């Protein structure tokens, strides 16, 4: 028997109550970890977007294709340093649920525009240029599917109807690319011509056009020049920096960060009341026991300390459990290679903030009670007065 047993005994006194409170705390901090993790993940995505090149999409909607002929005209605009039209399709390997983005593009042009974000050895890029069926795959994707250079992989492409009625394509993997954010290296990058010739739908169109610029300071002007060039055409364009593109994508679902923070705040606020209430009940029931400990010679501070430690233990252990669950689950929840979104992780800072919040919740709910226990008059408490 040690002093720690006194704390355990307090928690064991009403096992159902302790279990329910713990469960609430675990859930709250699981939510905290997941939601703040997503929040930071989104901010990171937006922040990591390279501001030095532009993305051109249809002004009608993001999904509307653009004619491939626009590439030539954009390339001719002053300040433009390379264009790459992306045909974005969905493919699956072996299992219809095992999906990935398949991007048909001028591979060399794409890797030149994205040279600081997508990296592949030059000889592999050259190999892709020489082999119509060649493909460069993201390292995450390759590891996930167990592919290596030299493999020939059949991909089911439901969105692509070939002349023979089938929708299968085979690619020869000639290279593997890395990304500045490794989790997002999930594309299968193939030759535009190979994909374009195979399809009946949307032939000679692209989903988006990536545009390199010579002078990053002039991106806004160049974007305007591009949109002006097509202002009177039937294919009006919307040209944005990659960062604006991601931002506007995120804005479509409202101010996510604010909403998420508000939810987390509300959850923690509720939790504070719950914990404070549980602790208050627990202390109220034990007033005579606390007085007894004092009569035995436990100091006022020692008795107050027991209550603080009890709260810290309850909140701390349950919060750790919830945060750890968030750390384990968030990457599984967010890993969507099919969307080109890599796994999100609970950052250390979020974990630390969670731990700090747990300590605060414990202290705020326990300190007033600890003060009460410290001032508790033994004689009155023992006579149940």
């Amino acid at each position: 028997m040690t002093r720690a047993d006194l704390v355990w005994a307090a928690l064991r006194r009403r096992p159902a109550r302790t279990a329910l409170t713990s469960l609430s705390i675990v859930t709250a901090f699981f939510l905290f970890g997941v939601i703040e993790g997503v929040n930071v993940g989104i901010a990171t995505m937006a922040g990591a977007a390279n501001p030095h090149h532009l993305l051109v999409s249809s002004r009608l909607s993001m999904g509307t294709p653009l004619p491939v002929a626009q590439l030539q005209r954009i390339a001719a605009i002053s300040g433009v340093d390379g264009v790459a039209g992306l045909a974005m399709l969905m493919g699956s390997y072996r299992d219809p649920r095992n999906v990935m983005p398949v991007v048909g593009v001028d591979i060399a042009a794409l890797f030149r525009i994205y040279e600081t974000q997508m990296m592949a050895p030059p000889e592999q890029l050259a190999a892709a240029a020489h082999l119509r069926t060649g493909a460069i795959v993201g390292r995450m994707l390759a590891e996930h599917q167990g592919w290596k250079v030299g493999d020939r992989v059949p991909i089911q492409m439901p969105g692509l109807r070939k002349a023979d009625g089938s929708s299968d394509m085979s690619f020869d993997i000639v290279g593997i690319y890395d990304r500045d954010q490794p989790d997002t290296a999930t594309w299968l990058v193939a030759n535009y011509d190979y994909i374009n010739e195979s399809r009946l739908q949307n032939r000679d169109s692209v989903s988006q056009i990536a545009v390199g610029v010579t002078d990053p300071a002039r991106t806004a002007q160049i974007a305007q020049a591009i949109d002006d060039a097509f202002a009177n055409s039937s294919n009006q364009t919307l040209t944005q920096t990659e960062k604006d593109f991601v931002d506007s994508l995120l804005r479509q679902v409202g101010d996510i960060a604010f909403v998420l923070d508000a939810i987390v705040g509300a959850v923690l606020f509720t939790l504070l009341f719950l914990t404070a209430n549980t602790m208050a009940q627990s202390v109220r029931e034990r007033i005579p026991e606390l007085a007894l400990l004092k009569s035995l010679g436990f100091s006022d501070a020692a008795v107050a300390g027991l209550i603080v430690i009890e709260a810290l233990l309850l909140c701390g252990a349950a919060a750790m459990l919830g945060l750890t669950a968030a750390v384990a689950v968030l990457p599984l929840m967010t890993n969507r290679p099919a969307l080109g979104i890599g796994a999100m992780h609970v950052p250390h800072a979020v974990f630390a903030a969670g731990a700090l919040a747990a300590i605060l919740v414990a202290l705020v709910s326990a300190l007033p009670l600890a003060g009460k226990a410290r001032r508790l008059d033994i004689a009155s408490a023992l006579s149940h007065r």
Partner: protein
Amino acid sequence: MAAMVSLRKVSKRYRRGAQSVPVLESLDLEVEAGEFLALMGPSGSGKTTLLNLLGGLSRADQGEVRVAGARLDQLSPRALARWRARHIGFVFQFYNLLPVFNAQRNVELPLLLTKLSREQRRHNAQAALALVGLADRGAHRPSELSGGQQQRVAIARALVADPSLLICDEPTGDLDRASADQVLDLLRRLNREQNKTIVMVTHDPRAAAYASRRLNVDKGQLGDDATTVAAT
């Protein structure tokens, strides 16, 4: 023999609303080491108040309180707590055992404030339980024990740290006659064989008969008790 307790002109009053009600007034008391003193008196006469002063659970408004060599009226709250742990064992009418702990652990509680090793604490608690005749009940929770057994566990807890003074407030007030006799026998044995100084409050003249001296508390004053029947 040295005085275990020495009160000089001790007064204690309680505030009830705006009023201040005197409970003990200019009270003197001497208890020698090795005595077994019974305090009797009507309900509300201040017996518990007096015990609380002796045990350092509350403070006198006036006067000198000297117990086991210390001037309680001059100790800081922290020093008073430490003094209680070292010198006083309490036995209450309603036992005040912690319900989540078994008998062994309840008895061990006061030893958490000593420097004894874990093994020593366990051993001493077991020895105290044996002394009150409950060596085989260590693993039982209070709810699994009779009232008399619970009170004997409480006595073991009061004894385990070898205090100078045992303070018992109506220890048999909640017990049937047979259990009460067992508890009183035990207290008398502790007084006679272990030379424990005991101050016990009781309503029951039969219980008071076990003591070596009896005093009456009435209207805040102490008087010799003439009505008590001698022990049989």
